């Protein structure tokens, strides 16, 4: 007898897989892409964090000088630290969502997880937009509250200029800049997370349907 024949016999006598998947689970496998979507949300979150962190480090010295002249250095550092802490918390939440949305979950659990992911992303976007608006307003408040400091910060040498007029123009300018950037930021989130959430929502709708069937 071939040496392998006895092994073949053992092979034929092996027991069936004890952790068999149910029809429901198999159906989920064929339809489910949620876990990869949630993984992308996590990855984009990290990339964004690195991007903003990188920008902060690459800011030219003149920006720091301006903060110094406006006596806002403490505000700048404290708010930066808080901001990055909050971002880290969000990244942790994204990671937790990703880990939780395991492919082997049942439909009900998965629906719950998807809802949780949507909520986290929503809060994340709201936090970023509000944070940006709040930061912009605070900086402007500091800037325009003391015209002497402002003059020093923006280096107005020409004393003939009417400082009040300059302040008004600057305020309007700042308002436009903040609005435009808020809009751009919102568009960015809509694009980056909107597409992913749309996919997730599609999967969600399918799962709800499946849940009604079973």
């Amino acid at each position, binding site marked *: 007898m071939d*040496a*392998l024949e*006895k*092994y*073949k*016999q*053992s*092979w*034929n*006598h*092996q*027991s*069936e*897989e*004890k952790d*068999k*998947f*149910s*029809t429901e689970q*198999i*159906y989920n*496998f*064929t339809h489910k892409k949620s876990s990869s979507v949630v993984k992308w949300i996590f990855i984009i979150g990290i990339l964004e964090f690195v991007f903003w962190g990188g920008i902060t480090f690459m800011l030219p010295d003149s920006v720091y000088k301006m903060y110094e002249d406006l006596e806002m250095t403490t505000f700048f550092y404290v708010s930066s630290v808080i901001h990055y802490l909050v971002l880290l918390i969000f990244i942790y939440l994204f990671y937790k969502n990703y880990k939780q949305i395991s*492919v*082997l979950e049942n439909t009900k659990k998965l629906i719950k997880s998807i809802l949780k992911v949507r909520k986290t992303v929503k809060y994340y976007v709201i936090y970023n937009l509000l944070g940006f608006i709040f930061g912009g307003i605070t900086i402007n408040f500091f800037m325009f509250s003391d015209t002497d400091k402002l003059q020093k910060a923006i280096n107005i040498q020409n004393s003939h200029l009417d400082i009040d007029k300059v302040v008004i123009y600057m305020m309007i300018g700042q308002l436009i800049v903040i609005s435009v950037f808020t809009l751009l930021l919102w568009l960015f989130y809509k694009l980056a997370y909107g597409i992913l959430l749309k996919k997730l929502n599609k999967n969600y709708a399918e799962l709800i349907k499946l849940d009604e069937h079973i």
Partner: protein
Amino acid sequence: MQKDLESKFLSDFEKNQNIVHKICRIYTTNKHAHDDLFQEITIQLWKNYTKFRGDSKFSTWMYRVALNTAISLYRKSTRTIKTQDISEIAFKIKSNDYDDTQEKQLQSLYKAIHQLNDIDKALIFLYLEDKPYKEISETLGISSVNARVKMNRAKEKLKNILKP
């Protein structure tokens, strides 16, 4: 129409899922990787199901798609099998004809198969499943003669690993 196709697929697949589990067992060595591969094979089977016209048996078609998925995934990854992983899965003999020697044989067989390359794994698997050469050649997309030659080499390799 789509719904009918879906339920037919699901019931056929569920009945034959042990085939996929066996394939996962020879290509992976821990539960997590096993489930990942299982899911990937399921996705590929469902994607290709519309092309399955029933001119071969469902299980035959399943062998082909599942093995090819495992082979292509295995090729892409550089994962090597870690020895500490192997003990994670216990290979069991059916309880009604339980035999200690057979269980030990089964375990050393799996251990040996894990050391083969992706193609040899598929060949040995089809040999153990008692598939005729015609089916083996169709499943792997090679000629019958080629299948015979490759099979003999794979068997030799396996015997060498199994030698005490």
